């Protein structure tokens, strides 16, 4: 893969913080990442794994201790006079903010459009994020989900080539989350590269082309959601009740096992189930291993 096709390239990224009481804490401990242009890439990990630190370094908010970083061909920590032009090409949706409370949705989006060289039509963006009915509402009257959609509107108003989304759906109800996912997929269809952090597995599964699992500042695995942790090749678990005891067997051929059981038992096999590991179980085992 040539680096021309990469929207983000990270090699050996390290960042630590020094707290007064806690001493030195390594937040990001040697991360390598590459995000292809046009893909949705998810950074998945528990709270405190280093997701936000990583993304904030990519967004140009934080400096780093070592490593190489390139976002749209620029080093976010060494932009010099290219800062404004670079920021014109990126969109950022931060974790919760409380700004612009006294303005209306329309006023905020129209105002932010002025910062960019080739902005989208503000009213269309408001419609895209589903806030048309709230156009004239003050920002402080919006619900959490509406507020987040406004954040996205401000993230995409400048027609970004890459959009950073930091835990975009935290606190959403399921319906709002689905509506939000549709919006993100629509942006992908427009060709926007999207880097999102989340601790929701279903979100990574629904959206991401590729997932990086991160814990304790290290990348544990990078793959598609379907193959994460060898999920696609994982053995199935057949379990049943026999002689009052829960019995189970791991197998590559669950159908054969069930056939054997059918032959042994007359009638119903008590508490029979066939399961494969969910993404969640894979994830928990991945995260668990690194805690040792």
């Amino acid at each position, binding site marked *: 893969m040539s680096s021309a096709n990469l929207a983000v390239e990270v090699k050996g990224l390290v960042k630590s913080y020094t707290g007064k009481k806690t001493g030195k804490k390594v937040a990001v401990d040697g991360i390598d990442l590459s995000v292809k242009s046009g893909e949705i890439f998810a950074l998945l990990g528990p709270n405190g794994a280093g997701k936000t630190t990583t993304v904030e370094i990519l*967004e*140009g*908010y*934080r400096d780093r201790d070592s490593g190489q970083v390139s976002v749209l061909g620029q080093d976010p920590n060494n932009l010099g006079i290219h*800062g*404004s*032009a670079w*920021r*014109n090409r*990126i969109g*950022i949706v*931060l974790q*919760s*903010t*409380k*700004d*612009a*409370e*006294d*303005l209306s949705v329309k*006023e905020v989006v129209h*105002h*932010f459009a*002025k*910062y*960019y*060289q080739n902005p989208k039509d503000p009213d269309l963006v408001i419609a895209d994020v589903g806030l048309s009915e709230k156009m004239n509402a003050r920002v402080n009257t919006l619900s959490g989900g509406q507020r987040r959609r406004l954040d996205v509107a*401000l993230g995409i108003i*400048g027609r970004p080539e890459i959009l950073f989304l930091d835990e975009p759906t935290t606190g959403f109800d399921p319906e709002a989350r689905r509506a939000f996912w549709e919006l993100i997929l629509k942006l992908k269809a427009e060709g926007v590269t999207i880097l999102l952090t989340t601790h929701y597995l279903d979100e990574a599964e629904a959206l991401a082309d590729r997932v990086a699992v991160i814990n304790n500042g290290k990348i544990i695995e990078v793959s598609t959601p379907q193959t994460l942790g060898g999920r696609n090749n994982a053995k199935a678990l057949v379990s049943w009740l026999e002689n009052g005891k829960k019995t189970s067997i791991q197998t590559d051929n669950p159908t054969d096992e069930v056939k054997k059981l059918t032959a042994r038992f007359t009638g119903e096999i008590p508490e029979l189930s066939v399961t494969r590991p969910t993404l969640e179980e894979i994830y928990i085992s991945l995260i668990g291993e690194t805690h040792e």
Partner: protein
Amino acid sequence: MSNGVLKIGIHRGALEIKQFTRQRESVVFTMLFPVMLLFIFGSVFKDTLAPGVTFSQYFISGMIASGLVNTGFQQLAIMIPIERDFGTLKRLRGTPISPVSYFMGKAILVFTAMLVQVGALLLFGVLFFNLHLPSTSEKWFRFFWLVLLGSICSTVLGIAFSCVPKSGRGASAVVSPIVIVLQFFSGVFFVFSTLPKWMQEFAAFFPLKWLTQGMRSVFLPDSFAVKEVAASWEVSRILIALLIWLVVGTALALKTFRWSDR
């Protein structure tokens, strides 16, 4: 591109003013509080300091000077930490906006709030407290450069000081006492020449003392100059003091301003 910086700065100024007028507390604080103080002090202290100079005239000169400090230094040093807490600055940092445009927006806000506050004080002073508007074009000219230099100094110092409060919540508790103490020391609430010497000398390090003295030179008769500590208005020293603070304040603002709180 610099054209864009200017244009966006003006847009930000308009937005800042819009936000300001929608925060009832800030409007009340800026508009009514100084006028209220004027009424209280003007009604309580009825002394005559010299022929043709009442305490309320003396006080109002100081309050106009204070208005420059309130709307610039105090307002910004409280407002910017709150914006930092609320994520306003972080969001702006992620857009192509230049910090210069942000500062311009603040300067436009300060200048507007200041015109309103000084205008209100002048109006009430003339209507109820026998305040005399400047009598000569020279005094009007001096009034304008005092307002201009004073508000710019006040703005840059407010931006510079905004890095001191640790959080938006505590900002008012850090900033307001400083302003009130300076007002006492600089001869706003008391006649400056009657203050202890050490207080006068301390106040002379800060711009408010020079602004109050300058405003007195504009609003009080020249015969009163002999009652000043230096027995003169010291107009050129006022100008020099303000210019020094302008340079120091700008340098500090540029050096200390942070978009985020890390």
